[in-house]
């Protein structure tokens, strides 16, 4: 089993080569952005992209009618006062469903909707990568094609099934749907990662008498942790930010945060206006925290999902 535990040497060599390259490039970086026009343009784009979010953040801290009566830039001329009370009002719902209810629902929806498809996809990806069987290519192509199917195509028939089984007020319908919609891409990506593992490792384990299940759990899973993390973040953000599946399948007690703030937009004129900005900011916090803390994995997953074939 020693051969199995030994780290794969290839990535390390690549890493040092990359580091060297990065150093070389850093050396001639000075010549690159010497033009003040280039820096100015970059800063301009950065400002353009940040100001709308920044405006909402400011608006979320202005006391009651202010966000509806003047632009956020009036925050600094002293006409409105700073308050964090809006966050409290939004959190407790201002008479409607409290925001924390939606956030709890989002958490309850997201954890199984990430865990289940990844586990199933890992198993399927292993079968496609390392178990020879008849019809494998056709099945794999079928899975690949299913990534393409827009989820709109599957919503109505699934809804019929859920109504008949009686799942429309539960989380099961949402979990099942996210699992189904997440599987094709998950299988495809994880299969690509699994294929990159040297066959000699699997062969060595097989000679040691390990069956497919043991090879999968003891040999492949530890090596796939970064790939799993990448896809987990992808699926997490997808489920957390989803609106279409939520609107179609959730009952009155299972609506996630996206549906919660979408509902607030329809009562914009009335009390909704004060709690809309803080509610939207609160809804952003979780995906932002995930993205910022796990950025490295996320970019990897993004690249694997789009550039890799």
């Amino acid at each position, binding site marked *: 089993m020693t051969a199995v535990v030994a780290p794969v040497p290839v990535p390390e060599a690549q890493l040092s080569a990359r580091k060297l390259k990065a150093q070389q490039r850093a050396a001639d970086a000075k010549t690159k952005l010497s033009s003040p026009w280039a820096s100015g343009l970059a800063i301009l784009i950065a400002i353009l992209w940040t100001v709308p979010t920044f405006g909402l953040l400011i608006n979320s801290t202005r006391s009651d009618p202010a966000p509806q009566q003047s632009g956020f830039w009036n925050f600094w001329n002293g006409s409105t006062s700073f308050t964090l009370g809006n966050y409290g009002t939004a959190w407790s719902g201002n008479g409607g469903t409290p925001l924390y209810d939606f956030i709890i629902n989002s958490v309850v929806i997201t954890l*199984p909707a990430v865990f289940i498809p990844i586990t199933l996809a890992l*198993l399927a990806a292993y079968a496609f990568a390392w178990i020879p069987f008849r019809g494998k290519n056709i099945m794999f192509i079928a899975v690949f094609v299913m990534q393409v199917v827009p989820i709109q195509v599957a919503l109505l028939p699934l809804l019929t099934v859920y109504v008949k089984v009686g799942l429309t007020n539960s989380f099961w319908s949402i979990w099942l749907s996210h699992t189904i919609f997440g599987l094709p891409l998950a299988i495809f990506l994880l299969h690509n990662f699994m294929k990159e593992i040297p066959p000699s490792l699997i062969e060595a384990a097989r000679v040691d008498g390990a069956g*497919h299940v043991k090879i999968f759990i003891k040999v492949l899973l530890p090596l796939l942790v970064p790939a799993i993390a990448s896809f987990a973040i992808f699926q997490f953000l997808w489920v957390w930010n989803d609106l279409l599946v939520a609107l179609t399948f959730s009952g009155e007690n299972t609506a996630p945060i996206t549906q919660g703030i979408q509902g607030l937009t329809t009562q914009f004129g009335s009390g909704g206006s004060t709690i809309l900005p803080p509610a939207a900011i609160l809804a952003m916090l979780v995906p932002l925290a995930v993205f910022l803390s796990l950025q490295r994995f996320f970019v990897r997953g*993004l690249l694997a999902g789009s*550039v890799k074939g």
Partner: protein
Amino acid sequence: MTEVQDRAPSPVQAQAPRPANKLKETSWVAPVIWGVIGLVIIGGIWLSWSPLKQGASPLLYNNQDDPGWISRMLFQPTTLGQKLLVMVVAIALFLAIMGLILWLIDRPKIPTGVVLAGFLGPVVIFLSIGLLWSAIKTVIQSFQKFDDAGAANGFVGLDNYAKVFSGQNTQVLINSVLWIFLVPLFAVAFGLLYAVLVDRTRFEAVAKSLIFLPTAISMVASGIIWRYVYLAPAPSGKDQIGLANALVDLVGGTPQNWITKAPLGTFALIIVMVWIQTGFAMTVLSAALKAVPDDIIEAARIDGATGPRLFFSVMLPSIRPTVVVVLTTVAIASLKTFDIVNVMGGNLPKNNILANAFYNALVVRQNGLAGAFAVVIFIIVTPVIIFNVRQMKKAEENR
């Protein structure tokens, strides 16, 4: 075999030696298991196909009855405790089932067909009912008529498709085309420009995070952010509330009602989607730019190429496959996106796109029309994806 037994054998192997024809004896297991999987799939298809009877009791849970605490927890959770408990139950149940399956197939000499059923069976069930059959059923539905209760009521040929291509919906098609072409174009242009500008600067990581932020948050949240940018013009003489109109005022233009004006609304929403997708484009293109071999750039520099010339004649051609992949990926995302139009479009037909028209038809139970919209989206997406896959293969080969 002796070599294997020298190393610590698994408990199963340590048992009494099996008869040599064991493999033959268990060969009926695989067809039986796959037969069961097939039956489950047929059951699912039957559930989705048989008409929805008014007042018929659901199989597992009926909220018209007065259910006990446990079944409410499972199928209609209302309190925090019930919700968290049902989540734990779901994960535990899933783990137990998968653990049992893996334990059952983890034996020596087990036929490959049985092992495959363990690894692939759940996925085959999920995908064939949930995606394959659902897609087929939606295509069938798009040729059917539906009554107000949402029940199928005979075939109507191409009537639903005629509706998609006529009346107010022609505007939907035009808007969708605008989305498909403008969003990828601008997202890639800004993303590429920004990636080049911040490449190898001191603030690269922070600068990239700023642009990527809109990609990470939900489109609903983005819609709310931009609502405050596009707020309606203030009464004359008063200061503007919305950022867009304040800027227009500043340069002396006429403030607009961005969302409700005819072609303007679509462009306003497209800007939001560009704002979201630029981060994605920038990230992928930046990685591609960094992968361009140094010797190529060095050679071009020695030949005297600098600045824009270096970029357009050397860098851009070498990342062309990636640019195409990003263009098509963003185009498909724009076609399938419904959140932005749903949250910001004010439910105006002139702002509408296919994905949101689908949802609107779904809400009013026009299942046939919804099916037709879904099929049209599918038909537009398919050639783009095929093209995309070819480009990806090319990109692989070039590397």
